[in-house]
């Protein structure tokens, strides 16, 4: 019999704890597949952040270090600066982690063009702590800390991280992708591969922002959640490549 599908060796056997319909699991799998396909699992060190993906160190089949809330890019910098160049280092961060408490760390890692890959999971909300407003929460979006919907006069406007970091000269490759359907999942995988290849070539800072679901805290079912990404998030967070200095630096 011909094998048509196999579990990637980039993930452990452990069952994930993510809610039904949460796309964190899909992002894990395609990240793991990319690491396997690039044959770098044995030289990869991942940095888990604080948020629903805090336990990702149980799922990725490579060395993992757990960082404090928002500090993953600093931890990754420490690892990058002391280990040999062939190591692949990535952070896996939520939008609360990266764009709120960790805004300083991400901006400066990008500015230094730290040779790391940041996987930035934007679900427009704080998942783990029960659905509070994130810096990425959409205007008018209801969360437990913006019960009437995000009011920009009071709570400011959502931050477009990919665009913002792209203004930094240190950013080598920045793309925003989504995992709301199969075609986009394949595109996301390609973007991740490009980012890791860029790091492998030593070209500096890469970040892939991935629009992701949180059915549990959005309070809608998994299918509607996929539509929410398509209809509500993508118009504000357009997909595409925001920075590409690979040729320039290569």
């Amino acid at each position, binding site marked *: 019999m011909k094998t048509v599908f196999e579990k990637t060796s980039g993930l*452990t056997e452990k069952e994930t704890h993510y809610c039904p319909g949460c796309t964190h699991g899909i992002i894990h799998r395609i990240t793991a597949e990319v690491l396997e396909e690039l044959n770098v*699992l*044995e*030289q*990869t*060190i991942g*940095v*888990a952040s604080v948020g629903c993906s*805090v*336990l990702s*160190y*149980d799922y*990725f*089949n*490579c*060395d*993992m*270090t*757990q*960082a*404090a809330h928002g*500090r993953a890019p*600093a*931890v*990754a*910098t*420490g*690892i*990058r*600066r*002391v*280990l040999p160049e062939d*190591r692949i280092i990535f952070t896996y961060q939520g939008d609360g982690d990266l764009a709120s408490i960790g805004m*300083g*760390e991400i*901006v*400066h890692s990008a500015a230094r063009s730290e040779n790391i890959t940041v996987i930035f999971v934007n679900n427009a909300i704080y998942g783990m702590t029960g659905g509070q407003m994130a810096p990425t929460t959409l205007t008018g979006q209801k969360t437990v800390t913006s019960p009437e919907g995000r009011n920009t006069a009071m709570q400011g406007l959502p931050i477009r991280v990919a665009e913002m970091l792209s203004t930094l000269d240190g950013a080598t490759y920045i793309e925003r992708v989504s995992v709301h359907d199969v075609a986009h999942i394949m595109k996301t995988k390609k973007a991740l591969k490009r980012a890791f290849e860029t790091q492998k070539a030593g070209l500096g800072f890469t970040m892939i922002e991935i629009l992701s679901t949180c059915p549990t805290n959005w309070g809608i079912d998994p299918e509607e959640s996929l539509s929410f990404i398509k209809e509500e998030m993508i118009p504000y967070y357009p997909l595409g490549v925001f920075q590409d200095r690979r040729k320039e630096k290569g």
Partner: protein
Amino acid sequence: MVKVLMKGNEVIGEAAIQADCYYFFGYPITPQSELVAYMAKRLPEVGGVFLQAESEISAINMVYGAASAGVRVMTSSSSPGFSLKQEGISYLAGAELPAVIVNVGRGGPGLGNIQPAQSDYFQVTKGGGHGDYYTPVLAPSSLQEIAELTQEGFRIADQYRTPVIILGDGMLGQMMEPVDFDAVEKVDQVFAKEWATTGTKGDGGPKTITSLDLNDVLLEERNHRLQAKYQEIRDKEVKVICHYEEEADWFVVAYGTVGRIVQSAVEKAREEGVNVGLIRPVSLWPFPHETISGFSETSSHILVVEMSAGQMVEDVRLAVEGKAPVSFYGRNGGVIPSVGEILEQIMKIDAGVTVR
């Protein structure tokens, strides 16, 4: 045996390099900035890495990353910056990562000033960050001792997988003294770091470094393991230097910069016929409880002098357990007590005057 004349902050840097620490992540703050500058110059010369972080929080987290990758690594700051490092120190303690963190203390609270102070004693010796943890704290009182204790700091950090704090102050950081690095004993023990996350090539399955245990029983187990380690450190790593311990009728207790000022005051008092001795805690945690407890059996008085409103005095009182009267003399806000004023205190106490 060549003695070199150096500034205290630079001695810390040179001592770290001689302790095979080739990685430093820092952020400027007076009165420790010369250390950051020294590392920026020296580390590239010896094939190491210096990086100026964007904040103390980032610096300590870079240390966390580097320590998790198995290297000897250091960061330093002064009081307000040290406060910012507390988050990372708690994580280092929780994840059991070795690192040396220097605090060249200054006057506080808040922005305070840039003069020397010892008012971070509580913060460094009682955990400081969140959770049940301690960090070994070494408090040198001369530049030669800085060189020795930096070497010791890295040994303790590696041996016990713990962050270690070197506590100085603006005076030690800024003063110049001759230092003989050849006289410093090097750590020759080898500390294999199989636990480090460096990539799994050739060394088995994936490794994880974390301070998280969502399960309460597992987290309690982690805490038990940490507490057992802290007990072992208490049993084995107490450092204290005593002067005139055989004959003195009573003692002054002081550490660091104040320890050396008090030493001069004690010498002067003895010249005037006062039979007083000095107890100088070198490890502030673990605190030399037993030594102080022992002397308090026979001592008629214990005077504690600090550049704070009175912090270590609490540990001294715990150790004395009422066996002898304890009094306190302190200057704070960055004021350095003079030999003269301490001598005056000693003379008053010796004359039977009750202070406070």
